[in-house]
């Protein structure tokens, strides 16, 4: 059973809809500790600010069971957008520590003023996959929908799975063992996102 973690934020409906569209039978949205404890895979969505996200995770009391599932049991986990940023150790956007499941920190875009780019990075963009992995093909021509003002910087480069460019190259997918994250929204990325979620469901 894939559990889409409901901790009070994120496009839960959209994620569930896409799993349904691709025919995933065993998927549910839940914020209940028992249900999460029995999950075979976890999906951590998220939209909004870092501290807001960590606050919600704390207040729902889900962090212990999530740590258990991700770090001890090592079930496949996919963090999306803010969900991916929460996997990191900390963020420049807030003061709270992150889950720390990946060796990374979340930082603001440091844009060259000459490029005249403004945050957020919003819209469709291509990604460059760095190594073979079960979620997305190496020479992927896939494009995905991004909307974010902060990005994850891997302290261990091996955990950076794919990059995109917004003035600078930045990590848009992370992976450490069973933990995956996408900065973009697969649930809003048409057939490209469907393929990625299909691959996640098959893990």
């Amino acid at each position, binding site marked *: 059973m894939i559990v889409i973690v409901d901790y009070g934020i994120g*496009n839960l409906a959209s994620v569930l809809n896409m799993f349904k569209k691709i025919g995933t039978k065993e998927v549910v949205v839940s914020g209940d500790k028992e249900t999460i404890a029995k999950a075979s895979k976890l999906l951590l969505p998220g939209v909004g600010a870092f501290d807001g996200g960590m606050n919600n995770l704390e207040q729902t009391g889900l962090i212990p069971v999530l740590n258990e599932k991700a770090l001890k049991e090592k079930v496949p986990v996919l963090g999306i957008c803010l969900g991916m940023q929460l996997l990191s150790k900390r963020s420049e956007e807030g003061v709270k520590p992150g889950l720390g499941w990946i060796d990374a920190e979340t930082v603001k875009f440091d844009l060259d003023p000459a490029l005249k780019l403004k945050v957020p990075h*919003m*819209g*469709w963009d291509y990604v460059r996959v760095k190594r073979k992995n079960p979620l997305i093909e190496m020479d992927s021509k896939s494009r995905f*929908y991004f*909307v974010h003002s902060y990005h994850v910087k891997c302290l261990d480069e091996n955990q950076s799975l794919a990059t995109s460019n917004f003035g600078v190259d930045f990590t848009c997918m992370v992976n450490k063992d069973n933990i995956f994250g996408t900065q973009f929204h697969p*649930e*809003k990325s048409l*057939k490209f996102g469907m393929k990625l979620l299909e691959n996640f469901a098959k893990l």
Partner: protein
Amino acid sequence: MALKRIIPCLLYDGNGLVKTVKFKNPSYVGDPINAIKIFNEKEVDELILIDINASRQKRKPNFDKIADMAGEAFMPFAYGGGVKTFEDFAKLYKIGVEKVVVNSLVQEDPGVIKKTVEHYGAQAVVACIDFKKPLFGSKIPYSYLGKKINYSLTEYAEYLAKDLGVGEIMLYSVDRDGTWEGYDNEVIGQLLNAVEIPVIACGGCGSLEDLKTVLYETNANAAAIGSMAVYSKKGMGVLINFLNRSQVIIE
């Protein structure tokens, strides 16, 4: 670098999709769910759906119907029309709407917009400015509910961006709506200079050339299309369609 976006903007009258000309004479063009399924196949960048009668008829958004629509949209989906309370916003985001478009609410209750932006983030709120050229003088914000908006277009846009903190502005030309005559590039250009947030051009698109001009010469961040997405050609029959992006979007 994020690609420029082309966004079908669908007008909904509470029952079905319609298309207007200069905001008048709505003509039926089809069922919204069917249309959204087609746009999904055609891989549109985003979708905007506006219930053009909700505020006027003092109706709430039809949440059940909107949930069905959002369920078929596997790309970012923006909804506007009749949104009045914080709970309305919350409900829409919960059922799968990415962005809520506000229009008359800006004059009626800007505090609710601020609260929503604080809670859900700027990217979740788009402010739509309809604008029109009056009998005398230059183009001004237009309120179809009859209220007078005492700001110039750029002042209004600055207010929306800086005071209310909305994530994007949709700029909709009443005069060009449904005319296939091209966007009002002059006004769009002025607005792009006045605000730092993305601007979605809307009203008048009639050709791929119009899209290239507004996106790559005027430099709008996104272009909304109306007639071009629902009619096969100017003056011809209904056909829900989407152009070949690669003929416009520079990668």
